[in-house]
């Protein structure tokens, strides 16, 4: 039993996410906190940089309860800005640097950012889309700061003693936007307490320690990144950000993991599947890895099994949890699954979290074999969706409870049973670990004036989870290419349909709903035919 030491020093604090950085800087000032390509920064320097950002933001009027958008490529400055935002009392809102300007501007205005940290080129594009998306802030990188913005040199000259702000652990630390079924992305509002509940659990359960070198593969707008950033700070370890071009080519990624001596890897399964399939691991032993963590979708048995044989010294954990709960269940995979085994379990509830399974009437179900919706309870549960009381009420029945919409099967009769994911209650799918509400894809298609009706369906794919295929009826002469272009202007790349079929009519079920199952079958059939 390790219950006595559970949480360790963290039982008595810190209570704010950015305090993890301060604590690390006090304990090991000269340890490298972060590496981005050839650039690196120690804990002491990063802590000071965060203070300077906080001072600069305060000077611009950012204070407790505000939001600051971060719209930039990953960099040392970007991480300093993320901590600096929290230290100024505000919540950081990461915006995908590759997002189309329309979408990026929507996110920034939806949560009415007080300031933005970005580069001059992106600021110009945002302002073109909506001036309110980039009111003021800080620029990074080359180029003169536009009106209202200050350059990074000015940040470097700012005070390392920012104004003290009375932040509590019930205040927001960050807002992560995720796909919304009606076409509007939803901002999941995470408090310091929510985030630290998860980080404390991870530090203890995964035995994260100061000799570790974490990789960071996930984008900052994806919740997996919080373990890389804050788990490494909590453990006073180093985090190294996977360079963009390295992430693209599995062989380069394998070489990078080796040369960086990465010990803790966390990503969606598809990144690992690509590494197994094309990484040349037979001649590139990943012998520094001690923890391989994955989350976001089901890991195809074939690739997981090969990975476990190729990296025999590592421990493997399947982590599960929607953005709204952080990680809430986990399973250590100790035996490489066989080809015909059922999908691996999502495991049991993390300590200090409670999970229940309910049927459609909300009755709690127990016992092996029962199936229903997974409900998560605890201080990990997000405060709700930013500025959307309706959706918050539907998803969060009370302040500590979230209805995941995920259907699971209970696998055993213990009081903290293990679960297996079996499907969704609605039209949300996963592609490369990203949540996609098919309704949001359809909403983007409907913005094209020629589209009369449309349905988006998933096309299962072993490496990626799902691709998206859409069927549309149109009036007038729009072709598939034009419709894809309309999607590209509004949706991030992972949500743009791989294929759009313009059809004469869409099949309906007897009760006059679109027959999604028939369309999914049709999509699969077309995919299997050589074009």
């Amino acid at each position, binding site marked *: 039993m390790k219950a006595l030491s559970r949480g360790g020093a963290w039982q008595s604090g810190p209570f704010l996410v950015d305090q993890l950085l301060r604590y690390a800087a006090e304990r090991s000032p000269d340890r490298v906190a972060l590496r981005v390509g050839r650039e690196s920064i120690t804990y002491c320097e990063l802590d000071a940089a965060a203070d300077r950002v906080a001072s600069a933001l305060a000077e611009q009027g950012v204070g407790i309860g505000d939001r600051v958008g971060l719209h930039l490529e990953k960099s040392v400055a970007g991480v300093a800005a993320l901590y600096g935002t929290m230290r100024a009392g505000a919540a950081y809102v990461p915006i995908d640097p590759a997002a189309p300007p329309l979408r990026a501007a929507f996110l920034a205005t939806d949560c009415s950012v007080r300031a933005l940290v970005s580069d001059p080129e992106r600021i110009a594009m945002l302002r073109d889309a909506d001036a309110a998306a980039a009111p003021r802030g800080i620029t990074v990188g080359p180029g003169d700061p536009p009106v209202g913005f200050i350059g990074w040199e000015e940040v470097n000259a700012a005070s390392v003693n920012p104004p003290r702000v009375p932040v509590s652990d019930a205040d927001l630390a960050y807002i992560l936007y995720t796909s919304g079924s009606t076409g509007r992305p939803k901002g999941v509002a995470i408090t310091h307490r929510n985030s630290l509940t998860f980080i404390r659990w991870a530090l203890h359960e995964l035995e994260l320690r100061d000799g570790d070198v974490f990789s960071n593969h996930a984008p900052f707008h994806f919740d997996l990144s919080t373990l890389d950033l804050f788990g490494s700070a909590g453990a006073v370890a180093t985090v190294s950000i996977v360079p963009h071009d390295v992430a693209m080519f599995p062989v380069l990624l394998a070489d990078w993991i080796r040369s960086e001596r990465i010990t803790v890897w966390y990503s969606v399964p598809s990144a690992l599947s690509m590494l197994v399939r094309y990484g040349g691991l037979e001649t590139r032993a990943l012998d520094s890895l001690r923890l391989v963590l994955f989350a976001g979708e089901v890991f195809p048995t074939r690739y997981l099994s090969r990975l476990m044989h190729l990296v025999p010294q590592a421990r493997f954990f399947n982590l599960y949890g929607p953005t709204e709960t952080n990680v809430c269940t986990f399973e250590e995979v100790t035996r490489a699954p066989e080809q015909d085994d059922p999908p691996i379990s999502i495991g049991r509830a993390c300590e200090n979290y409670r999970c229940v399974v309910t049927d459609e009437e909300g009755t709690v179900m127990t016992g092996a074999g029962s199936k229903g919706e997974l409900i998560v309870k605890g201080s990990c549960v997000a405060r709700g969706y930013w500025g959307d009381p309706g959706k918050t009420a539907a998803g969060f029945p009370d302040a500590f409870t979230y209805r995941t919409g995920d259907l699971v099967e209970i696998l055993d009769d213990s009081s903290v049973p293990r679960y297996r994911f079996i499907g969704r209650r609605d039209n949300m799918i996963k592609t490369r670990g990203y949540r996609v509400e098919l309704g949001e894809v359809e909403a983007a298609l409907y913005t094209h004036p020629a589209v009369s009706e449309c349905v988006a369906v998933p096309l299962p794919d072993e490496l990626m989870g799902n691709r998206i295929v859409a069927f549309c009826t149109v009036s007038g002469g729009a072709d598939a290419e034009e419709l894809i272009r309309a999607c590209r202007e509004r949706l991030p790349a992972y949500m743009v349909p*791989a294929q759009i079929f313009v059809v004469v009519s869409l099949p309906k079920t007897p009760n006059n709903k679109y027959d999604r199952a028939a369309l999914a079958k049709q999509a699969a059939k077309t995919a299997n035919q050589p074009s």
Partner: protein
Amino acid sequence: MSDRVPTREVRDVLAAIIGGDAASSVDENDLLFEQGLIDSLHLIELIDLLQERFGMEVESDELSPENFESLRAMAGYVRRKRGSHI
């Protein structure tokens, strides 16, 4: 002649992934990944299509920036692959 054909065919493959409009405006020396024209999701589709279209097997070590960074690089790679097998 043999120099031109694969570039056009590789452009067709790219068009199947990012759309004909976008693909036709790509210069053969444009850096596809650096300029954000394709991402890792596209790369998987690209490999599938190249293998299908040109009847070849992409090996791990060949999946490199040298072979995939631009249309010209991909065309050269396909030519070398075909030359060595046919």
